[in-house]
């Protein structure tokens, strides 16, 4: 690895002893010897196995749930429904005041996506739990479902989530997150060319090798230890505390070792119900997603749709950008209102554009709830933006890399959301990329600096 210390050399002391040096990972010896303890590597005597009865429908009213046969099934210790959950309606971001609570731990009266948890069965063996789960009878009245964001936003579309009352997240700014900077229509009017393009993506599953799960052990003093592979330890503890209406000091969370997460393990899904099961039975409880559950039930990256309209001058300057972004939250919020908001901040890209208009919508549909995944809210946006940049460069007959130099933000530039740019390094990165990829650009671009315009 080569560390280029000549960039921004005046901004730091050259006393880096660790950066740029290979150092053994502290966890590797455990990994290569098989000694690293993942949550599922614990085994407790008398441990129960939790299996979930899930909705076979995308959208349906539950007319009745009959658990009597399942409760009597050999090996079954407890069967849980919505009424067993102390605070059944929750939303994870309530911890940072992003409401309303809109999701059920176990479905109550309605299911809003195919695979939604309805009844939890706890049994002596996985097999007994699976067999008993098949004995749970749920009667559904199937409702019209909506899977497309634009369909969901049309008047008269089936309402996915009554806790919101409409099929979009209501921000304090209204039906979408908004960025308004300069006069975008005037910018378009003065542009040499206009290019409007639409970009779309499908949901993406993280597919970690270790599936989502936890093992909960009662400590015998009303305290519960939860071994979990969550990526969001205290988020999970605090949400479990709310859902279970238990003070946080009754919950001891042990984690930190995750067999692949990529953002897919930041939702609070398995822990509260497993802790509840342990509390109501007094027994250790294991709730581990099967591979099929991991692929179909755990939150994916949201499907997105991005409409970008740019006004560009023949000399390469982008003078106006209007973006409408749609994030498919699926049936529940989870982290998606935040993802859509991140998009709003991100859509101008790392470019200085004088006139910007951005609307980003967080839309509810009857699809699997989406949530965090590596740069959610910006990754798909970056794909769209950079494809758009290439198309713009082609439109005006300019080298795509030089086109980016012309528009790159530099220290002191005002961003569309009114944060002045500091610590920019895009120019320097592109200069290195130009050399590394043997993609030469004009000397004037190689002489540029992020420090200040005209430098």
């Amino acid at each position, binding site marked *: 690895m080569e560390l280029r210390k000549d960039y921004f050399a005046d901004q730091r002391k050259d006393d880096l002893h660790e950066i740029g040096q290979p150092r053994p990972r502290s966890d590797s010896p455990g990994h290569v*010897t098989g000694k690293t303890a993942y949550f599922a590597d614990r085994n407790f005597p008398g441990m129960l196995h939790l299996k979930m009865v899930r909705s076979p429908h995308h959208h349906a009213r539950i007319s009745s749930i009959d658990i009597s046969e399942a409760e009597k099934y050999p090996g079954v210790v407890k069967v849980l429904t919505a009424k067993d959950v102390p605070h059944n309606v929750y939303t994870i971001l309530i911890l940072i005041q992003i409401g309303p609570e809109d999701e059920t731990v176990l479905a109550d009266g309605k299911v809003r996506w195919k695979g939604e948890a309805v009844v939890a069965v706890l049994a002596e063996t996985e097999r007994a739990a699976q067999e008993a789960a098949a004995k749970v009878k749920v009667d559904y009245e199937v409702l019209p479902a909506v899977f497309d964001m634009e369909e969901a936003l049309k008047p008269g579309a089936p309402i996915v989530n009554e806790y919101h009352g409409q099929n979009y997240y209501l921000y304090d700014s209204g039906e979408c997150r908004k960025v308004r900077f300069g006069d975008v229509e005037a910018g378009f009017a003065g542009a040499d060319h206009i290019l409007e393009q639409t970009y779309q993506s499908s949901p993406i599953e*993280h597919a970690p090798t270790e599936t989502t799960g936890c093992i909960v052990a009662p400590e015998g003093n009303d305290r519960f230890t939860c071994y979990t592979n969550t990526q969001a330890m205290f988020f999970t503890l605090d949400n479990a505390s709310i859902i279970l209406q238990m003070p946080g000091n009754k919950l001891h969370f042990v984690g930190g070792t995750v067999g692949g997460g990529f953002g897919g393990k930041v939702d609070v899904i398995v822990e509260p119900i497993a802790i509840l099961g342990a509390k109501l039975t007094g027994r250790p409880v294991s709730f581990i997603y099967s*591979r099929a559950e991991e692929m179909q039930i755990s939150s994916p990256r949201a499907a997105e749709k991005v409409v970008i309209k740019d006004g560009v001058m023949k000399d390469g300057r982008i003078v106006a950008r209007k973006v409408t972004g749609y994030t498919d939250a699926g049936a529940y919020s989870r982290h998606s209102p935040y993802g859509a908001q991140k998009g709003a901040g991100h859509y101008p890209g790392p470019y200085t554009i004088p006139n910007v208009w951005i609307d980003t919508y967080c839309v509810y549909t009857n699809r699997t709830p989406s949530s965090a995944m590596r740069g959610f809210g910006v990754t798909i946006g970056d794909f769209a933006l950079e494809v758009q940049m290439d198309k713009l460069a082609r439109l005006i007959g300019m080298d795509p890399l030089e086109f980016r130099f012309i528009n790159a933000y530099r220290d002191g530039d005002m961003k569309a959301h009114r944060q002045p740019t500091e610590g920019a390094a895009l120019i320097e990165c592109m200069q290195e990329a130009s050399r590394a990829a043997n993609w030469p650009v004009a000397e004037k671009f190689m002489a540029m600096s992020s420090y200040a315009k005209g430098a």
Partner: protein
Amino acid sequence: MAKVPVQFTLNGAEKAEFIDSGTTLLHALRDKIGDTSPKGGCHQGTCGACSVIIDGELRLSCLTLAETCNGAAITTTSGLSKGGVLHPLQRAFLDAFATQCGFCTPGMIMAAKVLLDQTPNPSRDEVVEALSGNICRCTGYEPIIQAVLTAARSNSQNAA
């Protein structure tokens, strides 16, 4: 539930247990015997995290019933280091940064061990083929391939 006896050697040590008939080798190793180095990633034969070596052959312990392993010699990754000294494959995985979350690592090392036992100086393509039943979601595979090639080289140097 009918218990059945199983008896095999695990990393050279005799093991005998009474287990429920129908128990997979993965569960028997992890939950009865306490060797948690094989991991359950998919239980479908797709990810390879549960790979073990049975009588010299790479097998998936999640799709093998323990009671069919009577008399077998089973090797797992937890049995590779001897007296605190890492096996060359373990050393190479460590040095090449071939682990990240580590969940696939024990299975990868099993697949690599069978390869090197049968083909001490494999080509890169042979390494890729040998690891093709093991899924890693973190590393992008390249450091793992390099680790196996490095271990093969260090083996042949030691032998020389």
